[in-house]
């Protein structure tokens, strides 16, 4: 437990030592604001809620989470510090959990910094703050899902660029799979059950629940299961590389 905490702490601090964290935070906040107002019609809808804001989150995470996750293992591998890390008295699982937690806390911090928009909507009208809170939690959970995919991809390669591209590609596919246009396209080719399963596997449907602030057990299960599965895959990859 101590070891997990020590590694997580090191990882989290390492984000802030270099300008990476600050650049990321600025871009995240600017994009979150811009997309909400321009793509989400925040004002013109005339509704005091944050649905347009949360609607753009999956697309924001698609670009930004891979940037947070790409160094996770790829950098350790390319700089050789992985040899140090994996010969400390810590299991690969512990190291993975520690790294994931550090990055997830960082994303949570970035998400928290969007609070002015919450204040704004309260100033403009009378939103359901419970719904907004649930959406925030859901969005954080969703970012964890993207992050776990990134952790797995970062474990697969020593190149951060490759890790970024792979992560973005997988996340994009998972987002795309649930879009109505894509599902319609396969309507004739695949049986209805498969189409339904495809929709369930996609992040899109669960992201929509988040934006509405109605997280049910299925959404939470989906995200938690995804996080566990992708992290486990990453752990297996690192272990495979030890013996290959």
């Amino acid at each position, binding site marked *: 437990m101590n070891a997990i905490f020590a*590694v997580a702490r090191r990882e989290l601090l*390492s984000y802030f*030592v270099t300008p990476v964290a600050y650049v990321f935070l600025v871009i995240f906040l600017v994009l979150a604001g811009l997309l909400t107002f321009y793509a989400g019609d925040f004002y013109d809808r005339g509704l005091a809620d944050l649905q347009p804001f949360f609607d753009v989150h999956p697309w924001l995470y698609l670009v930004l989470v891979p940037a947070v996750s790409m160094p996770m293992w790829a950098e350790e591998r390319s700089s*050789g510090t992985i040899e140090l890390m994996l010969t*400390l*008295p*810590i299991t690969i699982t512990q190291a993975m959990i520690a790294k994931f937690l550090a990055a997830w806390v960082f994303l949570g911090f970035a998400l928290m910094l969007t609070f002015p928009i919450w204040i704004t909507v309260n100033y403009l009208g009378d939103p359901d703050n419970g719904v907004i809170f649930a959406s925030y939690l859901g969005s954080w959970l969703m970012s964890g899902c993207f992050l776990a995919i990134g952790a797995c991809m970062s474990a697969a390669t020593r190149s951060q660029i490759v890790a970024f591209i792979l992560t973005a590609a997988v996340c994009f596919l998972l987002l795309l799979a649930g879009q109505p246009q894509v599902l319609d396209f396969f309507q004739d080719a695949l049986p209805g059950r498969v189409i339904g399963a495809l929709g369930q596997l996609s992040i899109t449907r669960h992201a929509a629940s988040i934006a509405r602030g109605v997280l049910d057990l299925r959404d939470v299960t989906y995200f938690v299961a995804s996080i566990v599965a992708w992290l486990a895959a990453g752990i297996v990859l690192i272990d495979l590389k030890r013996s290959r």
Partner: protein
Amino acid sequence: MIETEKLTRCYGPLTAVDSLTLRAEPGQVLGLLGPNGAGKSTAMRMIAGFLAPTSGTARVCGHDVRREPLAARKALGYLPEGAPGYVEMTVREFLTFIARVRSVGGDKGYRRFEEVISRLQLDEVLDQPIGQLSKGLRRRVGLAQAILHNPPVLMLDEPTDGLDPNQKHSVRMLIDAMARDRTILISTHLLEEVHALCNRVAIIANGRLLADATPAELEKRSRYHGAVSFSAAGSGVSREMLARIPQVASVEVDPLDGRVTVFPREGRPILEDVQNLLRTQNLEVSEIQLERGRLDEVFRHITTSHGQGASA
């Protein structure tokens, strides 16, 4: 204690380490000596738990690296090749991180931290980022990291590679000071290091163990062991006379500086005879030396004859 048992590692069709069986006891400094690419680092990585053995196993203080990896790693201090470190961290942050992961805390941990810092003379660079340190300092930080938890077993992969002579000396002094009650395994391709540090040598090439002996025993295998060499003015005359001494096998003269080396027949002492002869010949000898044997020659002989045998 470090034991390896038929430790083997393959990369595809290539066998990097081939059935390596070694044993190092407390108080011993075992030098893993071999040409570049002999499998030294691969063997160490398996003992440290970074790589999984293809077959065979290793034990650190009795803990099997496959079955009890964490216990084995706790007993081990390891300096990986090139002394990697997190470049963005300061020396203090880095060592604190290692102390936390290894649960070296409290008053005792603090005293140990101070002790290691002063032993490795890192006081002045404590707050500098590791990325800005010179090669020698980085190596010292790597050593500090390896000994912070006072491990009974220490494994150092090329600890003095790339250091200047002064730095080499200080690192060797340090290893020497720690050797008394610990098991130390170092890898090197520098023969001088073996003389300076090790009380046992394991020579490996192509992943195979070719010799396991003390440096003195290895020197005895040298053609030069027991040979007498001297420099004398106008020594050309004496060459035939030297060859006439019954115990002498051959005489060689260095074409560059005219230094004469007299080789004995199979382990016979010849120093006295050579000296007597030189005295009766009234030769002006500026310097005379009894050779202990040359490790570089033994090393070359062992590692290359093996290579030829394998390719034949």
